[in-house]
């Protein structure tokens, strides 16, 4: 305390110094400048009177202050001149530019320059981010137009003429292949060899729209598509003008039908002859969203007119998001999906118009242990992929199923998700989409009998893939490669692919038909593998100079505000230091990839530290021995309460990745002790009612409304829960109470009743508030009203 007394004394001293010693000097100098400038200004136009002179003098003063470092020399000169004039002009000038105003002007200028720096920095930050983004989201040249079959490919007959494409959102590999799976029928198909299982590696970002782009175009979508996935109304992400296997079918004059996730409808406007989109907005809907797809299946299976039938089920993803992969809803959903597979497969066997139909069951992405997706963890990037058809039995791949759980979710052979496109194109006899980076899955080569046909499939795939490489790296495949190069030690991947490609052509010329497949196909596969790697890595080819420039601009912005910020931080002493440390720590945290997913841990950590700091800070003032209360002082109790509340909030919901499955209050405690939850719910409603009561007039009837409304709302909520998720009412008293409740009043009517009552009460309250004419109280009441609405909505 003595120190602070000392400090305040010295502060006062300094202020005095500023006012009495430095102030007059600075003011005098400004005056001199102003006088000089004014004199100069008044000389050429002596006719103009005082007002203009005054203005210009003020301006001059400002300018001189603002541009001090630049005008240093001029100032000195002016000073010298002014000193001569000072004696004559002093009297006049002092009348005009009095001290207080002058010091005010200089003070404002000091702040203003800081303000300009902050403003400039705020402009620079978005510029920096933009420049950085242009370097971070690489531009990929897309080949326009549809691919067409070349003459040399004509003699490869298609294996299938129709495709049923069933996407189950977030169908992770183990959901189908493991012992815990509910896909009993599908597993029996794997054992029979009529279903060929894969794990299809999906690249990040593992959200639906980029994945669908990968599946249909065969290209690797960029991170920009994540943003477009969220901005679903945006139509610029449409694939209408890109080469997809759907577009190829459409171009052939075939008909397509689609049921399920309306992302397809947005991606392919006008593509489908019959369609019924479902939205994934209502995440808590596990049932309707899938029934809306399944109800069309029987009809479409009986229709012979389409050649592609697409289903996209969302329910499994919804369960994942709401309750995680180990949810009790999951096995039932597995069985439901398995039943659809069964229905489709029986149709493939029985319906004559489906006898040459390929049935693909796949997930667009997986999910992590918390049931979320978007990242690149093993669970998220490992969806299942099955090719199903009675015709596939001829391949003779009878695999064991189910197989044991493994940690990386890699069941059977792992292929790339983009491989679906060329495989489908090959099997359906379509040209491979121009931007595809996929490789024909070699297991299906045996669907053709002749080696020549197999080679043609691979050769066509290689040609298409190398065209995309050529488009990205112009000139890499145009020139004829000198033969005789050693393919094992070339400079780059592209050069190696080049070399192998020329060797393939050599082999084509040299070898006879019988030996061709065995010698050429390994080389072709190698070319394909290299080309795919090269092209996949271009998706993450960053423009480093732009990244650097962006960083430079943002650094400049940070440096610009540094003086202002450090000044502000220094003024608040430890709090400022704490803030600075927090910002630095937060920045450093971003380098730890796990902390990006566990960001909340940082805030919990820093928050408890901050509360402790506040406690000590208050203690430094309060816990003097005179109070004799020490630890039990009110402030200390408050900080303790804050710390406890923070601790409870911390465990309210387990978030993030690592501890997501651990017990918390909202999931573990409430499901075990629903009475606690309901007590808290009731308390919340009572609190809302109490706040409402404050706004209502003092008459009996409206006051009654404040009691009736929360009671009604609570009853509605309990009824809703009893209908929707009865497991939350496990408490015997509550559930019995709910059973006694008359069921004939539908939920919708109850909701209407509650909202009507709410509207009435709100109107009365607003009217009442208007009458009482308490200004300033309105906004507060609006908050309460919003509060009540939010409570009820929850």
């Amino acid at each position: 305390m003595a120190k602070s007394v000392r400090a305040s004394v010295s502060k006062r001293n300094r202020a005095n110094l500023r006012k009495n010693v430095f102030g007059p000097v600075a003011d005098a100098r400004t005056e001199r400048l102003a006088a000089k400038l004014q004199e100069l200004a008044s000389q050429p136009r002596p006719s103009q009177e005082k007002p203009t002179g005054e203005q210009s003098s003020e301006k001059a003063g400002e300018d001189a202050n603002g541009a001090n470092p630049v005008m240093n020399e001029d100032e000195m000169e002016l000073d010298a001149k002014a000193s001569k004039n000072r004696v004559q002009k002093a009297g006049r000038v002092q009348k005009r530019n009095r001290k207080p105003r002058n010091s005010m002007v200089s003070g404002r200028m000091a702040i203003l320059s800081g303000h300009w720096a902050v403003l400039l920095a705020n402009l620079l930050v978005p510029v920096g981010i933009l420049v950085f983004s242009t370097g971070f989201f690489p531009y990929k040249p897309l080949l326009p137009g549809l691919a067409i079959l070349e003459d040399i490919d004509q003699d490869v007959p298609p294996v299938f003429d129709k495709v049923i494409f069933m996407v189950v959102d977030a169908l992770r590999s183990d959901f189908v292949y493991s012992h815990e799976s509910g896909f009993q029928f599908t597993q029996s198909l794997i054992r029979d060899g009529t279903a060929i299982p894969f794990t299809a590696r999906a690249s990040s970002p593992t959200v639906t729209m980029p994945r669908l782009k990968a599946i249909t175009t065969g290209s690797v979508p960029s991170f920009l598509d994540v943003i477009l996935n969220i901005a679903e109304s945006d139509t610029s992400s449409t694939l209408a003008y890109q080469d997809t296997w759907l577009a190829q079918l459409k171009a052939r004059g075939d008909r397509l039908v689609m049921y399920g996730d309306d992302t397809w409808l947005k991606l392919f406007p006008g593509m489908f002859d019959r369609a019924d989109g479902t939205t994934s907005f209502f995440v808590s809907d596990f049932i309707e969203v899938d029934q809306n797809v399944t109800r069309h299946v029987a009809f479409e299976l009986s229709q012979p007119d389409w050649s592609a039938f697409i289903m996209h089920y969302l329910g499994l993803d919804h369960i994942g998001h709401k309750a995680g992969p180990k949810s009790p809803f999951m096995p039932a959903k597995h069985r439901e999906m398995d039943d659809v597979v069964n229905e489709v497969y029986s149709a493939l066997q029985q319906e004559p118009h489906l006898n040459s139909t390929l049935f693909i069951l796949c997930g667009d992405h997986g999910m992590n242990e918390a049931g979320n997706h978007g990242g690149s963890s093993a669970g998220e990037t490992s969806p299942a992929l099955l090719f199903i058809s009675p015709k596939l039995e001829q391949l003779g791949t009878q695999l064991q199923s189910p197989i044991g759980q493994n940690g990386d979710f890699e069941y059977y052979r792992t292929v790339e998700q983009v491989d679906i496109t060329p495989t489908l194109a090959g099997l359906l006899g379509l040209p491979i989409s121009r931007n595809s980076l996929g490789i024909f899955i070699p297991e299906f080569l045996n669907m053709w009998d002749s080696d020549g046909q197999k080679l043609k499939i691979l050769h066509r795939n290689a040609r298409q893939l190398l065209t995309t490489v050529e488009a990205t790296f112009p000139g890499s495949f145009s020139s004829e490669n000198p033969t005789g190069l050693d393919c094992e030690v070339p400079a780059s991947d592209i050069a190696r692919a080049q070399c192998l490609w020329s060797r393939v052509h050599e082999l084509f010329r040299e070898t006879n038909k019988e030996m061709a497949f065995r010698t050429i196909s390994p080389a072709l596969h190698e070319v394909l593998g290299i080309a795919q790697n090269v092209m996949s890595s271009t998706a993450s080819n960053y423009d480093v100079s732009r990244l650097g420039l962006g960083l430079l601009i943002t650094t400049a912005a940070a440096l610009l505000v540094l003086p202002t910020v450090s000044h502000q931080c220094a003024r608040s002493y430890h709090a400022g230091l704490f803030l600075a440390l927090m910002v630095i720590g937060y920045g450093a945290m971003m380098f730890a990839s796990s902390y990006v997913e566990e960001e909340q841990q940082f805030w919990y950590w820093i928050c408890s530290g901050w509360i402790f700091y506040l406690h000590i800070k208050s203690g430094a003032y309060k816990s003097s021995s005179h109070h004799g209360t020490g630890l039990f002082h009110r402030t200390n109790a408050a900080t303790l309460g804050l710390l406890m509340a923070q601790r409870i909030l911390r465990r309210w919901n387990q978030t993030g990745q690592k501890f997501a499955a651990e017990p918390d209050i909202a999931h573990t405690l409430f499901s075990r002790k629903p009475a606690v939850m309901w007590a808290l719910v009731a308390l919340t409603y009572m609190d809302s009612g109490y706040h409402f009561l404050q706004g209502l007039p003092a008459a009996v009837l409206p006051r009654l409304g404040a009691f009736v409304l929360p009671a009604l709302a609570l009853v509605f909520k309990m009824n809703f829960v009893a209908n929707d998720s009865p497991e939350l009412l496990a408490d015997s008293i509550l559930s019995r109470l709910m059973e006694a409740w008359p069921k004939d009043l539908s939920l919708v009517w109850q909701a209407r009743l509650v909202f009507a009552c709410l509207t009435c009460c709100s109107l009365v309250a607003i009217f009442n508030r208007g009458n009482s004419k308490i200004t300033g109280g309105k906004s507060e009441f609006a908050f309460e009203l919003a509060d009540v609405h939010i409570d009820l909505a929850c």
Partner: protein
Amino acid sequence: MTSSLSPAQAPVEKPSPPPVAILPAQVAQIYSFVHPALLLSLYAFRFKALVAEPVQELLADLPWLALLQLLYVIVCLPPAGSAPAADSSVPDSKASARSSSGPGAVLRSSKPGLRKRHSGGKNDWSRVWAKLMPTFLSFALTSFLATPVLAILLVLFGAPLTTHNVETVLCAAHMALLSATPLIYVHGVDGAVWREVWGIARPADAVWGSALGTGLGAWFGAIPIPLDWDRPWQAFPITILTGAYIGYALGSVISRTPFIYGKRIQFVPEEDDDEKKTN
């Protein structure tokens, strides 16, 4: 206790006990540096066992740590208590002001170096008693007061409440032995000191520095827990305790350097006195 001071003078700024210096004896000076290093190396030596069986290891280490800490305080630190020797000390303005403030205060810190010098002439029994009494007191208070308080603080700062209770208590016991035992031994139950301790306002010395280092180290020890490295040592009490031990050693050494020694962390906003946090 502080009634002798008028509130008008400076209500909070009553003369608080000065920083505690390590006893001047050569053994004490040497061992005071050896001790943190010894604790750290022992901790490092038992680290594998700690990761494998945290509860058993922590429990088994507890008596040894207690012994080492008691040895350290007896050898290196001046005990609390109004030893008669303290009153016979050379007139020192602060020390005499405090000792005159009350015979009611049984346990009082005093100018250690001086008392040591002058107590040389007293009989051995009183010297032993002067050391034994604070030793017992510090041991008892560490076990029955500091450990529960630290355990509660650990929980408030994020330690699990429904599980790992044994680990939390053992971790708190280790931290209490590191931080509270020397503090109690040196300062006894002087309310003014403990208010300063609670308010992080003690002048820096080996005892306070190591206690603050223990707390800060434990706080920083929480950082590696959420990382996805999936190492067994990322389990709850281990990183916290590692941070506490490292913080203890660093704190006890750093706070004795001449630049830091005797300075306080100021939480009152002051522009003159630019003291930085010692840790």
